[in-house]
């Protein structure tokens, strides 16, 4: 095979999905000469499944990506058709933003931002082979025989690797939405010794807007005063478009039960493991057969399209059965399918093969990010993408790498889970996966990560100055509230009674008054306002930090404990076979995962506290040995 020299880069990104775009943009922002290769330049950041971004945990990841200078938040803020803050009735830790996306517009906007980014080249081409010499990555070769050289390559091929679409008993090789599958690259990875696993996911049918009778459904409007993902967004989109809610019924379930044998899921055609959190409609009927109805959300795919996504009806039943199902649902009796739902099977990389930097352990310079690592969801992909971009650039340019820990970001939780525990189904972030979720809030993503982003060169000076100012205002106001003593005046007592709070017996610090669950900063504004009107996000931050101080302190204590173990690093050249006393299962796991710290080791399933103790002693012995040799 004769190739031609097509160019020399620092970082090459294979794929332009939600992981790929963040990876390429972050690498380029760090100053790496970056090439992004995609098989179709019109499908950059395409959303093959639901037209929405955010939600619990996921929405916080979008904020984190933004705090590190990423794109997802900015682009969705410019293109949403609806924005909602979820969980507003619950605590601050679990509030989350979710947007309905305008799919075509999202693609356009993302492409524009990438095209305008310095250091970044976009090119259409399908990568078939990685060039590896001496266990180190040298570059890639495309289908058209172009050889691009680079020290770092990030693979973000999503569900394309040996993708296979299945609808009823029909099955064909394909990426999502009938794009080409990537077969040769999968074979190449196998040759290189990658351990692959077969996963499955699916998507529901889309119907045309004017065939829906919305009068039989419930409206789901957006928020009146939409908040945004990006800390840079200043303008809201005012003309939001609603979604609609309807339900399946006994008829629907009857049709599904009658045709269960035709579902690829149940006929045995699908071998891959599907996600439990996003079950197909046939799965829902089988596993929860006593449920009389299931929710179906009708979500527009954009402003300039008539396509409507039928959320909740993911299926691999034959197309004609899909039509029957739709027509049994109120509002969809006349629905016309534009695209049928399908299941897709694909190869994923077993993520325990990766370092926490997302670099592959057995080949230097190769990084993987996104759905290829066994995750699902645009946000999970974006979170990994930006980290892979940061670290691939670090590798190429000899700069410092970045690993976020579990107390810093959902992104840290996500990557640590993947590389430490692996996953046996497509992995989705949930708030319950984060043990410090009170610290990983929507409202403080900037406070957690902007400094890091700035130091890595991902946050522009101007934005950083604004951020510093915000931090200063928060601290100043918190200090002020510590000093203002409120007297039990009649005005204050009345205000307290109005919000259902108890009257004061004595004077109280404004700070302490704000600790009462029912007292908000609005009351402070009324009785002892700050000299200068503070921004809403500053007030929110002050309120949360004061009100939940006790819980936050508790979480911080736990983090401190973890950090001690996190700081006990395991030497790279450790020989687990030489350690006496470690249980066999633990030894095997440790050899495979090769944890960087004792804390990471302790999170591996099958490594028990005795093994951790022994590991600690062994490491300390190494340190003692070093000292005595010197």
């Amino acid at each position, binding site marked *: 095979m004769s190739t031609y020299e097509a160019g020399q880069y620092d970082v090459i990104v294979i794929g332009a999905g939600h992981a790929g775009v963040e990876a390429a943009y972050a690498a380029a922002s760090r100053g790496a000469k970056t090439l992004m290769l995609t098989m179709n330049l019109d499908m950059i950041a395409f959303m093959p499944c639901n037209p929405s971004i955010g939600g619990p945990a996921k929405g916080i990841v979008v904020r984190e990506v933004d705090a590190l200078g990423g794109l997802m938040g900015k682009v969705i803020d410019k293109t949403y058709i609806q924005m909602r803050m979820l969980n507003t009735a619950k605590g601050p830790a679990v509030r989350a933003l979710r947007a309905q996306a305008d799919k075509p517009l999202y693609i356009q906007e993302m492409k524009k931002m990438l095209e305008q980014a310095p250091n970044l080249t976009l090119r259409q081409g399908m990568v078939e082979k990685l060039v590896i010499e001496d266990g180190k990555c040298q570059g890639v070769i495309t289908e058209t025989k172009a050889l691009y050289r680079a020290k770092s390559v990030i693979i973000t091929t999503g569900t394309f690797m040996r993708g296979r679409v299945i609808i009823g008993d029909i099955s064909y090789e394909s990426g999502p939405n009938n794009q080409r599958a990537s077969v040769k690259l999968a074979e190449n990875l196998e040759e290189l010794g990658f351990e692959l696993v077969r996963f499955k996911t699916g998507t529901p049918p889309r119907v045309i807007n004017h065939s829906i009778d919305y009068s039989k459904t419930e409206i789901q409007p957006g928020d009146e005063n939409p908040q945004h993902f990006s800390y840079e967004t200043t303008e809201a989109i005012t003309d939001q478009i609603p979604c609609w809610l309807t339900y399946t019924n006994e008829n629907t379930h009857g049709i599904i039960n009658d045709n269960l044998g035709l579902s690829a899921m149940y006929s045995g055609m699908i071998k891959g493991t599907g996600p439990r959190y996003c079950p197909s409609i046939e799965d829902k009927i089988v596993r929860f057969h006593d449920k009389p109805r299931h929710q179906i959300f009708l979500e527009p795919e954009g402003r300039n399209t008539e396509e409507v996504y039928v959320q909740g009806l993911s299926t691999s039943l034959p197309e004609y059965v899909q039509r029957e199902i739709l027509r049994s649902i109120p509002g969809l009796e006349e629905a016309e399918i534009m695209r049928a739902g399908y299941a897709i099977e694909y190869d994923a990389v077993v993520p325990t093969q990766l370092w926490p930097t997302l670099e592959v352990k057995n080949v230097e310079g190769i990084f993987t990010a996104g759905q290829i690592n066994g995750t699902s969801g645009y946000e999970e992909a974006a979170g990994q993408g930006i980290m892979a971009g940061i670290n691939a650039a670090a590798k190429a340019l000899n700069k410092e790498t970045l690993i976020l820990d579990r107390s810093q970001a959902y992104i840290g939780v996500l990557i640590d889970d993947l590389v430490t525990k692996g996953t046996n189904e497509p992995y989705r972030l949930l708030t*319950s996966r984060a043990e410090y979720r*009170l610290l990983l809030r929507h409202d403080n993503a900037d406070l957690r990560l902007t400094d890091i982003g700035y130091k890595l060169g991902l946050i522009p000076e101007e934005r950083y100055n604004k951020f510093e100012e915000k931090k200063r205002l928060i601290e100043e106001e918190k200090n002020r509230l510590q000093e203002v003593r409120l007297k039990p005046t009649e005005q204050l007592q009345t205000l307290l009674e109005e919000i259902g709070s108890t009257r004061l017996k004595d004077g109280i610090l404004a700070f302490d008054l704000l600790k009462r669950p029912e007292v908000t900063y609005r009351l402070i504004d009324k009785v002892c306002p700050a000299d200068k009107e503070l921004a809403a996000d500053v007030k929110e931050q002050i309120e949360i930090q004061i009100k939940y101080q006790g819980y936050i302190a508790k979480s911080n204590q736990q983090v401190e404990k973890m950090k001690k173990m996190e700081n006990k690093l395991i030497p790279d050249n450790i020989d687990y076979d030489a350690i006496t006393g470690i249980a066999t299962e633990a030894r095997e796991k440790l050899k495979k995962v090769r944890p960087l710290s004792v804390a990471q080791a302790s999170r591996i399933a099958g490594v028990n506290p005795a093994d951790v*103790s022994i590991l600690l002693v*062994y490491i300390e012995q190494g340190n003692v040995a070093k000292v005595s040799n010197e």
Partner: protein
Amino acid sequence: MEKDTIAAISTPIGEGAIAIVRLSGEEAVKIVNPLFDGKDLATVDSHTIHYGKLIDPNTNEMVEEVMVTVMRGPRTFTKEDVIEINCHGGLASVNRLLELVLSRGARLAEPGEFTKRAFLNGRIDLSQAEAVMDLIRAKTDKAMNIALKQLDGKLSKLVQQLRQSLIETVAHVEVNIDYPEYDDVEQMSHQLLREKTVEVHQEVERLLSMARQGKILREGIATAIIGRPNVGKSSLLNALVHETKAIVTDIPGTTRDVIEEYVNIRGIPLRLVDTAGIRETEDIVEKIGVERSRQALKESDLILLVLNYGEELSEGDRQLFEAVNGLEFIVIVNKTDLPQALDLEEVKQLAGNQKVITTALIEDKGLDQLEEAIVATFFAGDIDAGDLTYVSNVRHIQLLQQTMQALEDAKEAIDADMPIDLVQIDVTRAWELLGEIVGDTVQDSLIDQLFSQFCLGK
């Protein structure tokens, strides 16, 4: 993790003349000092030993007479501050000391942890490292085996049930958070969460009280028999022992032999202790006035107060009632074979809510009722000791106590109207702690529960 203060019994388990509870860590002095009635341990010289009393701060009662050694780091085995509390040998007293320091913030040491710290702090040299690792492995395995053996099937099942109940609740909260639009379940309300929390709290409380019962089963109910001379204390003793060990006469004060005897009452061991009045010939009524005797009574789990049916209630009897006021006692009106002289109504009044049993021990009458009364005092309903679920392992008890604390925190947060996802932190903590008892803390099981309990989409 490495810096907290650990504690353990460092003498072999079993009866010995003395036993030692050892603490190591920054807080060692801070933990013991408030418990110690003696010199201020914070100011005494290092490597000195001090006599004093150990006081339970909850009840302000003395637990033990002890000798406390203070050794400040780094000149100690672990190079940390070390406190050693020497107390009388005997499982019960040393366990009580351990529980006390654990309740004040010390953590129960892992097997081999003192040695491990000694090593990590550079006290033990390199050549010993491997020995340390072997020790950890061996001790951990052994401790685990022991703990698992102690964890009987019923207890383990009960803990699992509590965990299941908690995890269902937590999953319910989680599903509200992660799938806010999922309409199949109502939002978990504060009230519902409170109910669930209280439910589990009660169960844990019951387990802990059964742990006390378990202790009784192992160590016996310390029982004192008191009464004026010649009311039938020795007959009672004999009847309980089912063999004549004490000399029974009708001459007051003729009981000479001191008998500390274990007797088995329907599977429950009774340890008959310090049966003042049987032991000595002096008048018990005079004796009762003595503080030392009152102390002896207080140390008993149960007092059998014997009266004579054939005699009127005397001043001495009334003093006895005063002496046992607030303690667990059973009144035995003996000698019903004699003509009645005792005012039973008055006796019942004096007994308050404690039981009154009538016996004619000389004719073997009433012993059954007495035995029933004893069992009922300590165990509700019929008890088959072999069937009783109880917690005996100190580690398990500590975990149960921490579970209670977590559940109490949750209740407090609910009452303070904290958001439900914050309350949930403490509920999850309770679930994790119970998991440590049965050796199961895998975080992923919450996620498994989530997806098996609810049909989730968006």
